[in-house]
């Protein structure tokens, strides 16, 4: 099972919208300060904003390929709700996340099940993400020690590479996370997740930058597990609104059933 640290898939858009505002990388007097600024932007994507939108998730594995269309809501970093619209068979299936707890609502049996600790490692909706991926919360600016790849600092290189090593006491399974940022847009294009032995485990790609909800963001995210030929999970956003008023009541077990 793949691991994705921050709440990327479902809140990717919030993440993008705040952190990667279309602004050229300004020259900073200090490398450290610049790093902190970039990472801060990165991390602050996760907080404050609210969003509402629709997206399509395509999962391709050796065994099956499936496409789900879903409606999403989020508020801050720790409240979100996803409800499946299609296919008809799964319509109404919903996942609620509040803090580090996850509930699934299953319309077929009309029951809400809290995901127990033992199932946190299981796949979410058949994708390459686990339930644990949904709740993990880390801040690159605080939890990681990051450095620029000097070679990519050259003006002739279009993408900046940042290598981040988690601090010793942070509960992160990765040995290293590297990201590629497009210098022109300051938007990420790719991030790579490595294990303890510096072996690539998963790649995330950020593509198809468009203006959505008033912001320029990559609207297609693809998670690719290493060593699993042809497998991926792709999330495409078709509609997105930001900073709208969403009642806290939406993120409750009552509204999970709709």
């Amino acid at each position, binding site marked *: 099972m793949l691991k994705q640290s921050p709440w990327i898939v479902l809140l990717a858009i919030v993440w993008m919208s705040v952190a990667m505002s279309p602004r050229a990388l300004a020259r900073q007097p200090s490398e450290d300060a610049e790093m902190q600024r970039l990472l801060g932007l990165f991390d602050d994507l996760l907080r404050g904003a609210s969003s509402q939108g629709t997206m399509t998730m395509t999962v391709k594995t050796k065994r099956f390929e499936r496409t789900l269309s879903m409606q999403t809501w989020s508020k801050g970093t720790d409240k979100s709700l996803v409800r499946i619209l299609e296919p008809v068979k*799964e319509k109404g299936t919903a996942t609620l996340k509040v803090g580090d707890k996850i509930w699934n609502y299953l319309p077929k049996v009309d029951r809400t*099940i809290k995901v127990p600790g033992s199932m946190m490692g299981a796949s979410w909706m058949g994708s390459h993400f686990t339930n644990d991926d949904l709740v993990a919360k880390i801040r690159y600016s605080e939890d990681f020690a990051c450095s620029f790849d000097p070679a990519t600092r050259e003006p002739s290189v279009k993408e900046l590479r940042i290598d981040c090593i988690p601090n010793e006491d942070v509960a992160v399974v990765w040995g290293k996370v590297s990201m590629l940022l497009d210098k022109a847009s300051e938007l990420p294009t790719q991030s790579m997740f490595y294990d303890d032995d510096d072996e690539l485990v998963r790649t995330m790609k950020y593509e198809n930058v468009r203006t959505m909800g008033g912001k320029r963001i990559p609207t297609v995210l693809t998670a690719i597990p290493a060593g699993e030929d042809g497998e991926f999970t792709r999330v495409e956003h078709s509609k997105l609104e930001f900073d709208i008023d969403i009642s806290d009541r939406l993120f409750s077990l009552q509204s999970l059933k709709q």
Partner: protein
Amino acid sequence: MNKVFVIAWRNLWRTPRRSVVTIGAMTVAVLAMLLYASLVEGYVRDLEADLVEVEVGDLQVHAEGYRDRPSLYTTIDDSDAMIASLEGAGFVATARLLAGGLVAAGESSSGALIKGLDLETNDAVSAIAERVDRGEWLAASDPHGAVLGRGLARALAVDVGDELIVLGQATDGSMANELFQVRGILEAVTAETDLAGVLIADSIFRETFALDQGVHQVLMRRPANLGLDAASALAQSTIQGHEVKTWRELQPLMSQMIDISRSMIILMFVVMYVAIAILILNAMLMSVFERIRELGVMKAVGLSPRTVLSLVLTEAMLQAVVATVIALAVGAPLLWLLVERGIDVSGFGDITAGGMSIGTRMFGAVAPHTILGPIVTFFVLVFLGVLYPGLKAARLRPVEAMRHQ
């Protein structure tokens, strides 16, 4: 010879007290052998029965790689043809569907191993249907009925009639979810099934997990005339391209434990039979030497050594027959009790050991060899026991015998 027989019979009752003592000792010996053989049979049968008859079967077939990394997708696709050819070769077989998942009831949930059973063929292969403690076994008429392991039912705090949700990942990547009703709760079986087993009908399993075809496991019993290894070889040649394993390979720990139990039983058997042999020898020596004077008189009146020996032997055999008849008469109700009620040897409930449940009540089992074996052994022991004193008596010189105390 006939005359010898008549004399022997009369001799027996000329000194009834002595005969009664000898026959009594013999009866105790036969009875002990009968009861012990039945207990041993019951014990060994129980050990294997729990494992083989109820859950594991003699042999199991899995798709190559399934046991290494169990997956819903690793299936045997030609199971119908495979079962047909296995049955052609004398096996009885049934297909099983397996999936890992979560079961939830009320606020509780627990990891589970969900098994889809072919209800038509299951009972011919597995006796698990008889191990329902509360409620009832699965029925085709009740597709949403589920039978649970006892430990799992306890963990979920559910009883017969309660509802249960089974969750998992279906083959199409969707979230498998289905509502069931607890139809039955099993007795103590293997730890795995006890703590995690959810048994349902194969049709609803396929629906729940979107599994159109293929099975994960084929469970079978071997033809009665084949040993385990021979049956394994036969199965392997009948079905190619899949992994065939015997219950001993599937449950190496239990297999060892049964082997160790067996060797302990053999050791016990030896000890037991030594005790019995001492008793019989004792009785025979007593019954001959105590009337050596009498035998001396017979020699003195002209009986040949041969006749004396056959007289002594015949007497012993007659006593043995009487003892056997009494032992069988007394033993029958005791054996019945042993088979039906068993002996509670611990005062505890059912327990599991190394993944297999072991009843703490010792039950006997009766088979032709548990009756005939001890009786034949008994006669051999009596014969051997009486041979030495008999020969001694036959060779006795009358004068010596008269002086003999």
